[in-house]
Each structure stands twice: as structure tokens, then as C-alpha cells.
């Protein structure tokens, strides 16, 4: 039985805790969040203990009763908590993006290696069945050889603790926080990226809006266009792969099995907002976490490694740089993975 401690009871902490609650072979031992009420509420729901800090949790649970630390904190806090968990000899599952800079991400990866703990990063798109199936079709040659790919992701401006998302130096904006999913997925499908060009609203408007359009050129020749938006209403994601003999496309806002619309007549209900759902048992997040757990249990390599997460961050940061300078950014092979 693996004992897991979740740090952070926000959006992602709740998703992770919920997943562990029903996961065989796993015991969720606690949830720590500096907001005591939030931790308590989630802990009550997940039938585990609540703490107000990482240190308090370790102290009260006893370090020997914890195997895995799952970090669901705002991105700028990932580094210090990954390092602390490694110091405490715990395997780590960390939400994406691994860090805000490549140097930090490299340090975290190397540090975990040194300390002999494992590090998994929540690049969850590889666990979404629609994306897995698209890749499987691609690999089977369903569209011939791939040529032009379009991906999109977004919705409204994210709301987080202390408004941390709106500090672009903390979240990386839509390019780092959201598009890192697509960058990882596309790299999984099409290999290494040669060149990145990007434009974004960051630095152009003062409003709480972010919107980015990124072009990736892969070493294989494939051209990909990725749209990231925090300027729309309602979450959506899209994928289109066009090849020499076929096209695969997916649009979560259209290809959805379930949409609830409230007439707004019950107390507290909101009228007119369609709420689409794509029920899956287990959820992609639960699949991802169960996979990481099984890798810890049997020592196997995960479907997405910390190195993959580093590469996805590298593409994200190249896109940020391109958006800032207005010029394309070429990724060179020499810098890949090894240097820090």
C-alpha cells in the first residue's frame, strides 16, 4: 500500500485527492493547504487528515508513514517542495509545468536522481483517450504521413489562489501554463521540434486576457499551429491532424456526449450556461496518477518522463521568447536534456 500526501487543495489538489480516494493499492493519508478550511473540506470529503503545511503533515503523520508527495501548488512553489520531498526521501508527483525555468527544472530532475527518489510530472494529455486514440490512428498510418497539425486549448482566464495565474512571471501565461500540454503531446507524436514562432497578447494589453498563436516546425518537417486562449468562455480543446491521405479532427465543444443547461429556476443556479461533460471511468487524471503509482510500485518507466516534461517546458519557453522578441527561435540539439 502506497501512502500519498497531497500538497495544495486547489483545483488540481482536489482532482488528485479524488482520484487517490478510489485508487486500489493507494492510501491517501493527508492533504496540506495553508488555507485550513480548504484542506479540511477536501480532507473530509476524501476521508483523510488535513494539515496547514507540508512540515505539519510530515511531523504529525510521521515521515515513515508517507511514500509519495503529490505537489499541486502554484507553479513557482514546485521547486522548493520537490527539493524538500527529495530531501525527505519521498517519490514525487508534481503538477505541470515542472518549473518556471529550464535551470530550475534541470536542478529538480538532477536533485531527485541524486537523492534516489522518482519524479513524475503531470503532463496529463498523454492520458486523455481522445489524444491517445488520435496518436494510435496516426501511428497506424490512418492519415498517411502527417503534414499540418492544428491544436487549440483554452477558455476563460483561470482563477487561482491569490490570483497567481495573472502574474505571468509566476504562471508563464497561457503559453507555458496551458500550451505545455499540447507541446508535450505533439512532441510525443511528431518528435523533436526544430523551430518555434509565437505571438501573444502578453505585453500588448493590460486587461486580464491572454491569447497566443504558436507555430512549431518539427525536425520531421511537420508544421503545427497551436492556439492558446484565456480570452474565451467555457473550456475547450481541439486537435486536427492532416496527412497525405486523411484528416483526423476533434473538438471537445462539439464532440461531447453530455451537455447540461440550467434554466436558472432553482435557488443559486445560473441560467443559460451550457456545461459540457465527457464522463470517463476512471478520469484521465486518475489514469495518469494510477500509472505513476504503478511505475513506483514496479520500478518501470512512465509513459511521460521528467525529461519529457523538461522538453515541453523548453518548447514553451522558446515560444515565450519568440513572442517577446518577434523572431523565430531555433532549438538546438546540443542543449537537449543533458546540460542545465
Amino acid at each position, binding site marked *: 500500500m502506497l501512502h500519498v500526501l497531497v500538497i495544495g487543495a486547489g483545483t488540481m489538489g482536489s482532482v488528485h485527492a479524488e482520484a487517490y480516494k478510489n485508487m486500489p493499492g493507494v492510501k491517501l493519508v493527508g492533504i496540506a493547504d495553508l488555507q485550513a478550511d480548504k484542506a479540511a473540506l477536501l480532507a473530509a470529503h476524501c476521508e483523510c487528515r488535513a494539515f496547514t503545511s507540508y512540515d505539519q503533515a510530515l511531523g504529525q503523520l510521521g515521515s515513515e508513514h508517507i511514500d509519495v508527495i503529490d505537489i499541486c501548488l502554484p507553479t513557482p512553489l514546485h521547486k522548493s517542495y520537490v527539493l524538500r520531498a527529495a530531501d525527505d526521501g519521498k517519490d514525487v508527483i508534481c503538477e505541470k509545468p515542472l518549473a518556471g525555468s529550464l535551470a530550475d527544472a534541470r536542478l529538480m530532475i538532477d536533485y531527485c536522481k541524486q537523492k534516489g527518489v522518482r519524479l513524475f510530472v503531470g503532463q496529463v494529455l498523454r492520458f486523455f483517450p481522445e489524444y491517445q486514440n488520435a496518436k494510435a490512428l496516426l501511428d497506424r498510418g490512418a*492519415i498517411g*504521413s502527417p*503534414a*499540418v497539425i*492544428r491544436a487549440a486549448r483554452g477558455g476563460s482566464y483561470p482563477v487561482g489562489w491569490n490570483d497567481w495565474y495573472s502574474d505571468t512571471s509566476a504562471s508563464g501565461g497561457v503559453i507555458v501554463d496551458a500550451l505545455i500540454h499540447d507541446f508535450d503531446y505533439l512532441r510525443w507524436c511528431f518528435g523533436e521540434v526544430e*523551430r518555434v*514562432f509565437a*505571438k501573444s*497578447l502578453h505585453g*500588448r*494589453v493590460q*486587461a486580464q*486576457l491572454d*491569447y497566443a*498563436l504558436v*507555430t512549431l*516546425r518539427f525536425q520531421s*518537417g*511537420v*508544421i503545427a*499551429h497551436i*492556439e492558446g*486562449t484565456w*480570452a*474565451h468562455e467555457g473550456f475547450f480543446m481541439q486537435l486536427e491532424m*492532416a*496527412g*497525405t*491521405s*486523411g*484528416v483526423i479532427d476533434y473538438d471537445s465543444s462539439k464532440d461531447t456526449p453530455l451537455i447540461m443547461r440550467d434554466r436558472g429556476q432553482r435557488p443559486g443556479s445560473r441560467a443559460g450556461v451550457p456545461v459540457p461533460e465527457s464522463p470517463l471511468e476512471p478520469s484521465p487524471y486518475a489514469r495518469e496518477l494510477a500509472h505513476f503509482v504503478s511505475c513506483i510500485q514496479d520500478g518501470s518507466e512512465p509513459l511521460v518522463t521528467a525529461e519529457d516534461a523538461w522538453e515541453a517546458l523548453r518548447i514553451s519557453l522558446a515560444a515565450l521568447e519568440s513572442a517577446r522578441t*518577434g*523572431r*523565430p527561435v*531555433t532549438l538546438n540539439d546540443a542543449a537537449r536534456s543533458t546540460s542545465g
Partner: protein
Amino acid sequence: MKIGIISFAHMHAAGYASALMQIEGVELVGIADPVAERGQKYAAQFGTSYFQSYEDLLAQGLDGVVVTSENAYHKEHVLAAAKAGVHVLCEKPLSTNVKDAQAMIEACRAHGVLLQTAFPVRFNSSVRRAKQLVDEGKLGRILAMKGTNRGRNPGGWFVEPSLSGGGAVIDHTVHVADIMRWMTGAEVKEVYAEVDHLIAETPIDDCGMLSLEFDNGVFATLDCSWSRNKTYPVWGDVTLEIIGSAGTLTLNAINQKLNVYRDEQGYSHHFWGDDMDLALVRDFVSSIASGASEASVTGEDGLQALAVAVAAYRSDERKDTVSMTDVLA
């Protein structure tokens, strides 16, 4: 009003011809085509005369002429029309290069004839409605745009650069580049593009992804790829996403469709929206009739859109951004 058509090389000619037939007071005087078989066939179909030489057609006392020849011949045909004092509606792209396009504009100005670039998308009812919403300020200030104009590889002379000037990039950049200029009232300042030949067997650029910076700080991308395969339910698309400070707009100009499922042909879209070719030709005819001093969509509009495509090719060669001032110089 007497109108002629020079060449049926471009498949849009048939659409323009049938539009001309529907407009009251317009006489389709003749079709000139160097390919006799093709010219005679369409002359018979539209009940008009066939001319082997376009000079003979232009000598028929025409008011206007539609030029739908291969891109590389636009210049020759437009210059001849201008010289004959005949107003011109020229198929897009206006030309295969900036210099020729500038010469065409100059010649039409010198001879006092209208030069209209055939951008039918401007006359699509949904596009016009979008423009109206933008002009009413419903989106606030435009911040960014994402456009696509994908299609199938048309083959034929379209994939012979000596006749077409290039593949997907020159063929499919201009429509939406024009719409973006029209919506924003701004000019493209800088272009970046990834261009390649990744799909067709014939070596021709069939994939293009452009990034545009406008002179008012708006940015945009445009996918002009011939990336629709044979069984895709529709020939292609014309889409534009507009991000404004007060809202967003999602435009899919040909999404007025029935979904049709047939045992033989499979799944296809059946378009039932307004005929934009008819609206385009009607506009050209009415500009002539009213003695307008400028066409509603000018040669200059055609030149600017063409220059974006030219900049895209240059950007791909250099693997860097290209300034429009350099391309237009």
C-alpha cells in the same frame, strides 16, 4: 452592359459567367480562350460567342471584362483591357509578383478603367455581417485574429509555378489576408511563415502557416494549406476567429450547410448560403454602371494581399520575419 470573359483556365470563370447571366441588363458578349475546345464548350454552355484571341474580344466595345486566366497571364490581359478602355475584374491572386501587380494598377489608372480584384469572400453574407459587428464596436478593439483558408490541391496549372507563381501560399493566402486587412483597417507590417511541400506528389508548396503582425499592434495567423483530402466532406474552409477587447467572434463563412450521407459518395456538406460570386459580379457591374472612380475592392487591395504571400515565401527561405516594406519596395 457588355461584359466579356478572358480565359476559362480558372474554374471560378464558370461561377462568374453564370452570375453574369443572372444580372439584368448585362450581356455576356463572348469568351476568349486560347484553348479552343475549352472556350467553345463554355461559349456554347452560356450561349455566347467564342473568340480565339482576347484582342478580338476586347474590340467588341466591351464595358467590362473578367480576367480568369492563369495567374502568370493576368498582367498581359489586364494591360490589354486597360489599353482598350475596358473595366477589369481580375481573379486573385492579382499577379504572380509585386512588380507586375503594380504595373497593372498603374496601367488601369492611366487609362481610367476600374481594376477590381476578385475577392468573393468579401461578399459572403456572414463575412459582411461579421464586418458590421466589428464596425459597430461589438468586439471592442480587435486584439488578435486566427484565420484559415484550407482546400484541396487543385492540380493542373495551379501546381506549375511558371503559370501560378506558387502553390497553396499564393493561392490561399490572399482571401483571408484581405479579410483581415478589411476587418482591422490596418496593413500587414511583418510576415513569418513556415512553408513546405508535404502532401502532394507534384513538388509544390502545399502547406503554409503564416504569422502576421499588423501596423496597429494586432497579430494573426493564417493557415493556407491544401490539406483537405479527397474524402473530406467539403472542398475547404474560410474561417476567422477574432479576439476583441470586449468579446470574441467565430466566423466559418461556409458553415451554412446540410450534412449529406450517401452510399456512393460518403459524407459531404451541401452549402445553402448566399452565392458570393453573384454578389461580387453584381458589385463590379454596379461600379461600372454608376461610373465609380474606384472599385469597391481595388487593385491595391489585391496587391497588398499578394505581397503577404510573397513575404511568406521569402520568410520561409530566410527562416526569419520579413518586412512588408521590403516586399513592396
